[in-house]
């Protein structure tokens, strides 16, 4: 028990120093723009189908499940508002982040982990390219930039899924549905959600890189790196979410 508590603080400390190294290296030349673009493309490309499918199902299910209750209360016309706000504010960002924690953090953890154990990171180091800049900085930046885009994409698909149910079951036209949703949404919903998506992306990239970059020797180390990256990234997504809700509560009385 005490060992686990100690381990927790050790990890937290190491992760913070990894993050501070990221900020130090991210803003000093040379910059790896080409690799950054490649990473952005890869992350978007690898996750958008998954995010789309999940978003669609969430929108669909959420609407189907809450319809009967809303009908009971005679509030079925409030469906677009309720579903729209809950997706944009909370469900969209968190679900997308969790999917990406599973997809991207584990991918980065495994990739960097295997580069570490097969000495590819050492080989970069001796050939004059700073591997931290080339591998870590580009990946963390790519997840930070791409996650908000994926969240917006996921939100839209989820709303479409929800609109589809309303359209089929409640004869609400798509136009009416989306009009209602966009009227209900305020900047107080959109801005905090987008800002927290950046942070989700940051922790996902950071944790994936951290676990992979310091992966233990041997193939078992790669598995552990990928696995713990997912667990830690998912946990941190919730922690960030918790903090974000607290902070945005101060700015925009929810």
């Amino acid at each position, binding site marked *: 028990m005490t060992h686990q508590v100690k381990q927790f603080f050790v990890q937290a400390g190491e992760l913070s120093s990894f993050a501070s190294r990221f900020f130090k290296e991210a803003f000093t030349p*040379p910059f790896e723009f080409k690799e950054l673009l490649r990473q952005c493309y890869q992350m978007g490309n690898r996750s958008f189908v998954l995010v789309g499918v999940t978003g669609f199902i969430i929108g669909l299910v959420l609407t189907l499940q809450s319809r009967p209750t809303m009908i009971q209360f005679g509030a079925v016309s409030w469906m677009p508002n309720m579903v729209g706000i809950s997706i944009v504010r909370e469900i969209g960002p968190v679900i997308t982040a969790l999917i990406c924690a599973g997809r991207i953090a584990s991918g980065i953890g495994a*990739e960097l982990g*295997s*580069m570490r154990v*097969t*000495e*590819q990171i*050492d*080989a*970069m*180091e*001796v*050939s*004059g*390219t*700073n591997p931290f800049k080339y591998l870590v900085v580009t990946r963390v930046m790519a997840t930070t930039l791409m996650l908000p885009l994926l969240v917006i994409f996921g939100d839209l698909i989820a709303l479409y899924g929800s609109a589809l149910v309303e359209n089929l079951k409640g004869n609400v036209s798509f136009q009416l549905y989306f009009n209602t949703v966009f009227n209900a949404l305020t900047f107080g919903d959109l801005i905090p959600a987008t800002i927290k998506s950046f942070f989700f992306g940051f922790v996902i990239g950071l944790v994936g890189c951290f676990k992979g970059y310091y992966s233990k020797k041997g193939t078992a180390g790669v598995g552990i790196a990928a696995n713990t990256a997912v667990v830690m990234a998912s946990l941190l997504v919730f922690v960030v979410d918790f903090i974000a809700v607290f902070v945005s509560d101060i700015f925009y009385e929810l």
Partner: protein
Amino acid sequence: MNSDLMEKDTSIALAKEKWKSNTDTNRKAVIRIKDVRKSFGDNHVLNGFNMELYEGENLVVMGKSGSGKSVMIKCLVGLIAADSGYIEVMGKEIATLDRQTLDELRSDIGFLFQGSALYDSMTVRENLEFPMRRHREKLGVVSDTTPLVIEALENVGLAHTLDLMPAELSGGMKRRVALARTLILKPKIILYDEPTSGLDPITAKEIIELMRSIQKKYGTSSLIITHDVDCARVISERMILLVDGINYAQGTYSELSASTDAKVEAFFKK
């Protein structure tokens, strides 16, 4: 346990004596290691290792698996920081260099990794181009690196693999591509970490031949780490045995293979 420790102490003292008497002050040393120590927790890997690599020579370092050979050459290029001791490469003390000087120095050192360490998300061509990203000035090339890549691949007889991925190569081919990548910056010193390990005897022989022809062609100084006695016999001009974290014995192959010291004999027993 106690007597074991004492034996180790006397053997260390003995090796230090031998090392002193063997140091050749007339030749120019490109690498100088003095009294280097390195431990990982309680695991004392290097306990005061001494070594010199002279210009243009082939030096073989032999040692059991886990004796710290890889740790030793990683200390040489600054991949691992030694706990104490002095490491000098081409007149520069590694521990005191800033990042840029270290990178410049590293471009003069070729490092062939034990497991080849090819970047497996890149093609062979991209693998070979990678070291040139930061060292364009040194080569004097501006735009087209293709001729250099092809020349390096021809040196190892693999020009046709240019657009393959490392996963499509056999172990021996990987090792040769890695060698080509090591050579692309025309290093003055090459560090080979077990160049023949994991290869069949015939491929191993080919690699050894390659190493010799490279040595002849470019006049590099080579430090070869191995536990392959045959490789050592063919290629070494001088040998060092790394035992218990120290330079336990050194000499030519014939000198060492004739030794009656139990720990030295153990290396040459078939």
